[in-house]
């Protein structure tokens, strides 16, 4: 009963927000434009007929995207139609790009409406837990840009497990225990390097060797305030212990590693030759490459250590939602071949299903040699912040 009154309030609120953001509808109209004409295919299942745009509408553009083969996996056409309204918490930053796909879904399904709220993933995770504890969950789905936030919600029992058939296309390493969450896009740690100053062989295949590599001393950049960097240090701490992680940070700092506000800047600086190499998630370098195909920018990956961590953006069904079926169906859409092609070619994330090729000429996830680590454990950040502060690396 109480739930009902809250929902109606939410609808009022939604109308209000929709009314005041009327301009948004105009923008999203642009998106469907690519395939909105005659090249769409009619979907036949569900309540009404819908037009699913051609694959090209889901693809990004630019040097790295041209000439890709058609993705495998389950197409949206094979999935039940989406209808009804869904409240979504979506992590900030990259989530802005992921959200474009949600807008496309709303274009495709006229009866499907999403009310989204965006903040940092960790902040949303804590909000989800608080709301569930207070018996007042506001959202049905949590789409986080990193696994630690998903792990935090899962550890606090604020989720409802996803059905096996929803998570099945994704390798088990990128799913939460008890199907608490499922990865929808991969984010690999990497070392962007300037190909005019180094060759791939100059970059060691272990992060621990980097401070002792003369070619890299004092010429690297990092962004310690960035969440992905902290996850990387957490992984190092879990794999090698606090002392080793602290010593590594100290030796990198003493080698003159320069601090940047984010990893896109680092990747650009490497492309410009201002830095020889850096620490960044893989897709930042691909963005630079996509707009500047001639940039002397290469990507190296370490092996079986924290430097090769593959974190994921993923979706979680929030405890207490009444839209369970719609959530499952929505997550299946995120794992469709169109969605995976979109994430791969627009945000240059690693696809989570086997039928879709990685962006650019990157190795596949299997070839990456990520460390053996439970991604949910990355939410244990307190000791990480402590050791970063001891190492005088401001996080």
């Amino acid at each position, binding site marked *: 009963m109480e739930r009902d009154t809250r929902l109606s309030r939410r609808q009022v609120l939604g109308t209000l927000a929709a009314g005041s953001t009327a301009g948004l509808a105009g923008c999203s109209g642009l998106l469907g434009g690519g395939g909105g004409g005659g090249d769409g295919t009619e979907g036949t299942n569900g309540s009404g007929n819908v037009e699913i745009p051609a694959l090209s509408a889901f693809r990004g553009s630019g040097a790295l995207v041209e000439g890709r083969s058609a993705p495998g996996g389950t197409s949206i056409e094979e999935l039940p139609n989406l209808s009804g309204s869904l409240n979504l918490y979506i992590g900030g930053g*990259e989530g802005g790009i992921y959200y474009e796909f949600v807008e*496309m879904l709303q274009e495709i399904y006229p009866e499907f409406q999403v009310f989204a709220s965006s903040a940092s993933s960790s902040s949303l995770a804590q909000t989800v837990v608080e709301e569930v504890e207070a018996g007042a969950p506001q959202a049905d789905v949590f789409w986080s840009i990193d696994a630690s936030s998903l792990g935090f919600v899962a550890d606090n029992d604020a989720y409802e497990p996803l059905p096996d058939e929803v998570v099945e296309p994704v390798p088990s390493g990128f799913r939460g225990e008890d199907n608490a969450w499922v990865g929808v896009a991969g984010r690999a740690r990497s070392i962007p390097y300037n190909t005019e100053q180094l060759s791939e062989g100059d970059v060691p295949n272990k992060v621990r060797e980097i401070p002792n590599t003369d070619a890299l001393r004092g010429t690297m950049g990092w962004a310690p305030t960035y969440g992905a960097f902290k996850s990387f240090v957490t992984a190092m701490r879990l794999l090698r212990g606090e002392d080793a992680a602290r010593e590594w940070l100290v030796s990198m700092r003493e080698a003159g590693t320069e601090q940047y506000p984010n990893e896109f800047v680092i990747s650009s600086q490497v492309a410009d030759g201002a830095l020889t190499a850096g620490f960044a998630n893989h897709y930042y370098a691909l963005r630079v490459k996509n707009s500047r195909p001639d940039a002397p920018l290469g990507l190296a990956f370490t092996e079986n250590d924290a430097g090769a961590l593959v974190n994921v953006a993923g979706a979680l069904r929030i405890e207490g939602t009444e839209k369970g079926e719609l959530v499952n169906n929505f997550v299946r859409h995120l794992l469709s071949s169109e969605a995976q092609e979109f994430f791969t070619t627009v945000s240059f994330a690693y696809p989570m299903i086997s039928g879709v090729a990685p962006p650019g000429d990157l190795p596949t996830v299997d070839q990456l040699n990520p460390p053996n680590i439970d991604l949910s454990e990355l939410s244990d*950040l307190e000791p990480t912040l402590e050791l970063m502060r001891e190492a005088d690396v401001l996080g």
Partner: protein
Amino acid sequence: MRVREWVTSFGSRVTADEATSIGTGLTLLAAAVSATLVLPLGWLVVDVFTLGSRAIDLTVAPTTMRVLVRTVALVAVVTGASVVVGVPLAVLTVQAKLPLQRFWTVVIALPLAIPSYLGAFAAVSAFGPRGALTNALAPLGVPKLPTVYGFVGAAVVLTLYTYPYVFLTTRASLLSLDASLVEAARTLNAGRWEAFKRITLPQITPGITAGALLVALYTLSDFGTPNIMRVEVFTQFIYARYNAFMRDYAALLSLQLFAVTAVILAIESRIGIDESGAYESRGNRGATTLDLGRWRYPATLLPAGIGAVAILLPIGIFGMWFLRTGPGYATGSMSFSWSYGWNSVYVSLLAAGGAILVALPIALRSAVSESVVATVADRAPYVGYATPGIVLAIALVSFSLDVVPALYKTIPLLVFAYVVRFMPQAIGPIRTSRMQVDRGLVEAARTLGRSRLAAFRSITLPLVLPGIATGAALVFLTTMKELPATLILRPLRFDTLVTYIWRVQEAGLYGQAAVPALVLVVVSGLSMAVILAQEGGRKSDQ
């Protein structure tokens, strides 16, 4: 002087009894309002209890102490520097005839319209390693600029974007200053400096302190600037813990931040305590008393220089972002919509209106009362102002979920947060203008048979109206700039200019941030026009 004192004391004698009865009602109202505002913050205390005995260890940890010392030092330096910059500029624009005086006044006030974190971004983009200016200077044989990062850089940026608080409040005091008193002092052979020290300074001190208090509390609660300038202060410390699933620890640190606020308020109340000199008669207000002669041309270098660094530099950097090629992918939800601008204006107007409604009784009461309750009611709201937006948002999230779920993530709660945060900015100007209302005038109206309300309407209200307009405009423009509370408390799919700027910046899409940043500056700049326009109105009153 003697006559004025006599009139004032006569006035208060006549109304002593009446004042007590209205006074009590108003004081209780002010106290109730303040209590409501402070209440949600009490939820933080509840959060802290979950830490148990660890709370004490964490409080006295050496790292916490280091952050505390650094934070206090930053507040002290920025506040001091803002007074040093703001007061002379106010004197210059009010009392000296600068060429293009009106223009320079706007220029000097304008940095307030730019969020300091955008200023910090601009500073880093320009002066940072391989920044725009660093690159431009390199061929000229300047290999390396001194680092912009760190304590000094943060202090400079914060001063550049907060001194207008001191400038505006001091200016308001100067404009309503009775210049005939200064002239009287001068005819009595007091030197210019002597006259300034003995007549002007005491009368504008409440204005300066009001502005300095806003600067100190802004600095204490600002997160973006220290973060970008890599200075670890309390807010940054809290934010990192908040983002690391340690909300209770963040709550504990927030309480420590409140302790610092209390100290600042105590200091302010000691400085501002003697306000007897602030009661003014309507005289030859705001007259030009400072003749710079030929020096007035070089004197404009001061506002010009500040304008160039604080305004032109960030606008240039936004322009550069705009022109630079982006990372190269389609940007649907990341594309700018004018509705974000409208949303910003909409909530900011609501916040300004709400803040005035709440600030009015508190300010009117505290301007004329010295009772303990009135003092507390006057000070309590500043706790909200000193609360970092993110902390207030955390407190309001748990408060609304536990107590009034119907308000959770609604516009009313968001506006409530703004009112809690920014209302003190309205109290200051209203209070200052109220103090300068000549009690004798009100009493004259009363003896001429006007009712209390009619006297308020015909005498007090018109005189405090400029204060109200300034207060509303200040709240409006700080709300436009507010980031963390907006991010957390806004309703689903409700984006404003700053939340949009934040989103695109997080995604590394600086180019996308350029247009909204400029829109933000323009709209906020218009609210500055309100502040300065009402000053103009007051001048033409004479």
